[in-house]
């Protein structure tokens, strides 16, 4: 099982290697063992590794975690594999934003015929640029965000023409 987090514009992979008796996470390729995980939710918590005691503050801000640790504050986002593109569930017509961010550039216009995988829009989130691609072949029905505009996670940014309409 591995998950992807974004910190300062870079993507990192985190995998749970073992949960008991001690949690072992593989973070960016290196194994880390934690003997105490601290409390859940927002607040002041501490993590313990075999050799260290790590005191930090944490809060949930929309779909990000804000962590204040050793005098510095970081925003950490995640890439949820189940909200990306066609996997968002439900409609096959809507391209949804996998995380909150801003539109950097748009690579299509309304009425364009696109094939699955074609880049439709480039977004930036947590300083990381990501290209959102067409989740199936189809025609661009509507572009809901202009360049420079912001959106929340799961907001629809591009709509393809409904396949049933076409039929």
């Amino acid at each position, binding site marked *: *099982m591995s*998950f992807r*987090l974004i*910190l*300062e514009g870079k993507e*990192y992979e*985190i995998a*749970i290697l073992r*949960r008991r008796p001690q*949690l072992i*996470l593989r*973070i*960016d390729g*290196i194994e*880390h063992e*934690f003997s105490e*995980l*601290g409390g*859940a*939710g*927002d*607040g*002041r*918590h501490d*993590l313990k590794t075999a050799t260290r005691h*790590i005191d*930090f*503050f*944490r*809060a*949930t*801000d929309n779909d990000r*975690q*804000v*962590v*204040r*640790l*050793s*005098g*510095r*504050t*970081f925003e*950490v986002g*995640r890439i949820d594999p*189940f909200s990306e593109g066609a996997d968002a569930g439900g409609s096959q017509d809507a391209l949804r934003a996998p995380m909150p961010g801003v539109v950097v550039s748009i690579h299509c216009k309304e009425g364009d015929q696109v094939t699955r995988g074609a880049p439709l829009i480039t977004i930036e989130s947590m300083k990381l640029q990501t290209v959102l691609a067409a989740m199936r072949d189809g025609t661009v029905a509507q572009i809901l965000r202009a360049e420079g505009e912001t959106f929340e996670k799961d907001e629809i940014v591009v709509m393809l023409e409904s396949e049933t309409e076409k039929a």
Partner: protein
Amino acid sequence: MSDPLFKKVMVANRGEIACRIMRTLEEMGIASVAIHHVTESKARHVQRADEAAEIHGETPVSAYLDIDQIVDCARRFGVDAVHPGYGFLSENAKFAAAVTKAGMTFIGPDAETIALMGDKISARNFAEENGVAVAPSVMPTDNLDDFVEKAKSIGFPLLIKAAAGGGGKGMNIVREAAALAEAARIASSEAQRYFGDGRVYAETFVERPRHIEVQVLGDGVGNAIHLFERECSVQRRFQKIIEEAPAANLPSGLRDEICASATRLAAAANYKNAGTVEYILGADGRFFFLEMNTRLQVEHPVTEMITGMDIVRAQIDIAAGMGLPLSQSEVRASGHAIECRICAENPEQDFLPETGVVRYLSVPEAEWLRFENALAHGQKITADFDPMLAKLVACGPDREAAIERSIHALGELALLGVKTNIDYLACLLDHAAFRNAQLHTGFISEHRTELAASELDETERAQVLAAAFLGFREFRDLVVGTPEPHAAIGGWRN
């Protein structure tokens, strides 16, 4: 406690300063009236007040600037006096006049004094007439021979500027008499070329200027005292972010001279209430009048901490006609205090304002610490108002202790959900040049590279990622929350 002279006071402001003024009103047994735009009906300053009035405006800021509406509110609520705080209408002569005309007391100077000091030229002339040093200058002229003669008499270094100028064109620093004539000629021809106007003027060039200001109190009939100076040299975007009292390494003779100059100006103006005389101080010890702020200053707490005085209380007493709270010889200062302005801004992007929601707030407590704020969990930080969110003010027996305590307190402070300059301020206070008090108004640009946030090392990065990972509920459930068999069959939502 004897009966206060005012029974009810309106605080025509918002945020931390409204709360801070109300704190003193409470202590004095005076009822408070808050004003607020509809977007702030649940704000801390509204909850803290005894009564609150909603004011209207197209934008929240315009409501706080609406003189007629605010004066009308004050009258309807039957207040005896209005405290303007800082910003908004605090230095608006028309507002002071309107409050007075409506039969209430304006807690501040007379409208005439506000107008006198509010105009740069009249303030400068008034200061000069009353023996307060102003930066020597030669008025714009196109007679270069005459210009050179006059400029020489000012002394060096000199800054020659195009009268019509801007953008650094036609600007020239001259360090010796021999170079003056040629520099004037070049400046004038450049000015002619760029602006079609060859007139040039000159003023004393202050190298590595420090911003020193003096807190004064006046009784309105010619008596004035000072509460010593503050240093506010650390600025970004021409605004202060760190202030301290006293100014570090100021020779005592020079300090006395600057403070005396401010008192003289206040007395000459028959200044009433609290005010601040601002100076620019050169490395050579020359100081020049910059302006006078006719209101309570954002950074007044550092003065309160070293003098033990409550400046808001002094303002209220003076406005009520009780005169100065103490004589000059009774004013004592000890220790050192530092104020850090906590702003919603991104130091890595030229301090541009940031917005967000206060998701988590944890404030350290200590008897040497004041955290002036009006923050609440869940509060939206919008672009409607100034990005200053709070002030962290710490004092100690000396400057070193005040710095240490400030850094410690900033480290313990957590304000999550909006990007702030908290970490940057801690880094700045810890910089060797700050610790050594090598201060000037260009401090932040001079030390830009060292003040930039450093890269995370691998261990720290892993800690941040682990802490964040365990904050995402679904991830955490996988690690601790899910029953063993379910997790064992594995996968996440598979």
